């Protein structure tokens, strides 16, 4: 591994120089001594080129979309168009201050207003807030809205939210944060919600139901109408986790088929870069009766222009972000939507579905795939054949893929499939690129039979070999010990 930036440091080197100040006031004259710091923080001291070399060297150790296929299920690692990056960096976006008068932000507000409208149309919802800055914060906003709805109606007995066992971990974690008990709903043998079981566990205390659709097995939840009827019969609400919305653009509007609330992951479906773990954005759409509970402000429009609108402040859940959400992420998603239009968006979902089904068809002979029907934008294969025949785990298979220049699929999730490999190619991969991935997967299946040790040893060609994450916990080392 390269040295840390601190080990490259040498006293009195500079990466930048500020202009000499024309105003000299001694620190003591401004701020009493007792508040002063004894020793200046030991940040590294390097020239600009030294800093550039160091971080470019680190960058070479990453997998990224332009390098190769990134088949992480439910993560939607599609290509991120470069025009987004060029346009978002315009000074009159990058240098806007959130406290500027509205009259000086009209272009930015117009953009946000149109994005609210476009996301409402795509989801079939009445109104959309752009404030949540991540999918999990969108979930948090949505569950707070459920909570506010029940409180407003005096539904004080509502204590639980039902979540399928195939759900992302953020769902139960979010419900817990808002103060709800989580009741897990087992999936049926088809991999979908077990309706009979749902009827049994729904009661007057049910506040809501969180459902990912298509679910994490890549299957559309066909019985939404019935689910909606069951949930709504006790005045509970249905939340759609929009992590997998990339399958539905222009095909299904969730707000029109029974869902009350949805969050979008703009960093998945609408192609804003993942950034190595953020920033993303998690706007939330709701049906008409829930509009009063959306966070403030909304962006509204009248004859005088665009405004930050606090009109429903009294009923709102309040705020989830210091200002108006991740504006720079919202700009990128806006550009994406405007460039695709209605037809392009539908084409995105069609191709995401076709690509996933093609991969599934090509791999079925080599890997166990529990569900026989067509999938939506992703599917779950598993390593149970390899595990049984050659004692090769899904982790080994995943690490071997890294050797072959591909990122691994999402592994060991959903939890209900042993040795799971959740695969989502996205629409931006070409047929040739899919075929190359299939070829690699077939080779690995062959290697598992003939040379399982090769897989246990994998990866061998990556910047580091298999990383000991147990040691990372047992001998916790979260910071570099700076010596000078």
């Amino acid at each position, binding site marked *: 591994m390269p040295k840390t930036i601190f080990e490259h440091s040498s006293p009195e080197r500079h990466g930048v120089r500020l202009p000499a100040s024309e105003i000299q006031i001694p620190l003591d004259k401004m701020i009493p001594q007792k508040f002063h710091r004894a020793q200046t923080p030991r940040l590294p001291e390097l020239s600009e080129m030294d800093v550039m070399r160091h971080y470019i060297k680190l960058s070479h150790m990453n997998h990224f979309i332009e390098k190769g296929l990134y088949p992480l299920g439910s993560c939607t690692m599609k290509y991120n168009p470069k025009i987004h990056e060029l346009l978002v960096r315009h000074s009159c976006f990058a240098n806007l201050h959130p406290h500027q008068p509205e009259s000086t932000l009209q272009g930015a507000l117009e953009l946000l207003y149109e994005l609210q409208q476009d996301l409402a149309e795509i989801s079939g919802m009445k109104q959309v807030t752009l404030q949540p800055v991540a999918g999990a914060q969108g979930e948090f906003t949505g569950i707070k809205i459920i909570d506010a709805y029940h409180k407003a109606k005096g539904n004080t007995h509502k204590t639980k939210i039902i979540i399928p066992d195939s759900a992302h971990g953020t769902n139960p974690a979010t419900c817990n944060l808002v103060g709800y008990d989580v009741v897990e709903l087992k999936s049926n043998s088809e991999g979908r919600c077990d309706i009979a079981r749902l009827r049994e566990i729904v009661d007057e205390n049910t506040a809501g139901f969180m459902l990912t659709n298509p679910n994490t097995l890549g299957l559309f939840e066909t019985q939404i109408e019935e689910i909606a009827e069951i949930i709504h019969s006790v005045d509970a609400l249905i939340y759609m986790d929009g992590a997998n919305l990339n399958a539905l653009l222009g095909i299904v509007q969730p707000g029109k088929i029974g869902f009350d609330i949805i969050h979008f992951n703009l960093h998945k479906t609408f192609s804003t870069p993942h950034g190595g773990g953020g920033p993303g954005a998690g706007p939330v759409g709701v049906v008409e009766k829930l509009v009063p509970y959306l966070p403030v402000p909304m962006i509204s429009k009248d004859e005088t222009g665009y405004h930050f609108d606090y009109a429903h402040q009294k009923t709102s859940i309040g705020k989830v972000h*210091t200002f108006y959400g991740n504006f720079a992420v919202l700009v990128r998603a806006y550009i994406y939507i405007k460039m695709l239009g209605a037809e392009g968006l539908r084409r995105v979902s069609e191709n995401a579905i076709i690509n996933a089904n093609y991969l599934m068809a090509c791999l079925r002979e080599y890997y166990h795939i529990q569900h026989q029907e067509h999938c939506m934008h992703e599917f779950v294969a598993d390593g149970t054949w390899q595990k049984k025949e050659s004692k090769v785990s899904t982790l080994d298979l995943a690490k071997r893929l890294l050797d072959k220049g591909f990122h691994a699929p999402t592994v060991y999730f959903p939890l209900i499939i042993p040795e799971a490999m959740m695969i989502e190619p996205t629409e931006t991969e070409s047929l040739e690129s899919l075929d190359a991935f299939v070829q690699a997967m077939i080779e690995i299946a062959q290697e598992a039979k003939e040379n399982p040790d090769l897989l246990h040893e994998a990866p061998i060609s990556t910047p580091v070999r298999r990383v000991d994450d147990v040691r990372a916990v047992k001998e916790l080392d979260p910071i570099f010990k700076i010596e000078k």
Partner: protein
Amino acid sequence: MPYISNTDRDRREMFAKIGVQNFDELIQAIPENFRLKDGLNMDPALSELEITEKIKAQTCQNLCAQNANSFLGAGVYDHFIPAAVDFIVSRPEFFTAYTPYQAEVSQGTLQFIYEYQTMICELTGMQIANASMYDGASAVAEAILMAVRKNKLNKALLPASLHPEYLKVIKAYTEGVGVELVLVPVKDGVMDLDELARMLDESVGSVIVQSPNYFGNIEDAQAISNLVHAQAKCLLIACVDPISLAILQAPADYQADIVVGEGQALGNSMYMGGPLFGFFATKLDMSRQMPGRIVGGTLDKDGNRAYALTLQAREQHIRRAKATSNICSNQSLCTLAATVYMSLMGREGLREAALQSAQKAHYLADELCKIDGFKLEYPQAAFFKEFVVHTPIPARQIIDKLLPRGIYAGVELAENSLMIAVTEKKGKAAIDEYVKAMQEVIHA
């Protein structure tokens, strides 16, 4: 379609392999009556040239801080950003990568996060930091929730001098789990220590101190800490400006237990307030109660130095409903900007930025107070780069009258109260222009 490779011919080949005739056969699981009949109702698709024109028109409707003389702060600050920062952040190796779960092909991201955690600990004096929260507001909220997990005491005291938007976010985050939030009054622009002493008892789980506080004033954090730690279990949560830490006391020096804050000022453009990022640091013995991702050093199979996500058993993808937080995506790329920024500024550069910000703010405060009717709202309090003045005419009028001159005068706090921020980017001429404009509009 610009970003889709597959042509109709490719699609036909794929249909054949799948064993269907057309796309509709693939979505038979979606009931017919759920399917959108007429397509979405949206504007016609734009080409790259057309969207560029549209965005250009929108940006022209904005007056950015670069083209104005801005004295706005209140949580987001216009500090200098070296050009090299954006070159690193724009590398697709960093910006199109996923969360570094597959450590062997993510060492670049993992190592910079490790370096970031180290820098945050160096600034704050703490022992462990996470890979980031969404913003300063949610970082304070998560700190309060962590304190509740640690000592099981669900009452938190917050100063009335805390950022008001933070307070709203904290309320949203903590009410569900039944945290009682109580405001400590402000006296002379800082937390009222007599009131704090009166309000503290064994039922209080945490006390938040923001320093510099919302008004820009420096709190006597040591005195607050002494009161807080007189209670056996109570934890001190410090919310600080990272730039200020180049010259002001490290929170560890006044025995803070958890240190959080807004990190935007470290190398990130303002973007109308988002993305921001929250930093979060604490003591090692509380590491297992922390929210968010943490990177740790370790070894690979050959015994070479490597990095990995660590203490993941706290997180939602493992612990689900019992996780320490629901956070998944954080603000990783913003922390990369911060890491590169701190590397370029270095030890002396950050100190110089902090010192010049303070000097220029104090110069402006002195000059403004020479104008009839202006005075500092909190003359007893020390401030860093932001301060509040009492204005002879309503603050709203000042803001409106300076705007046509291309000046953002500040943030209105009350009818005759204006909050003004200055960073190292301001030259003396720009400050003098502001003072002169102020004189003119007051006397007009």
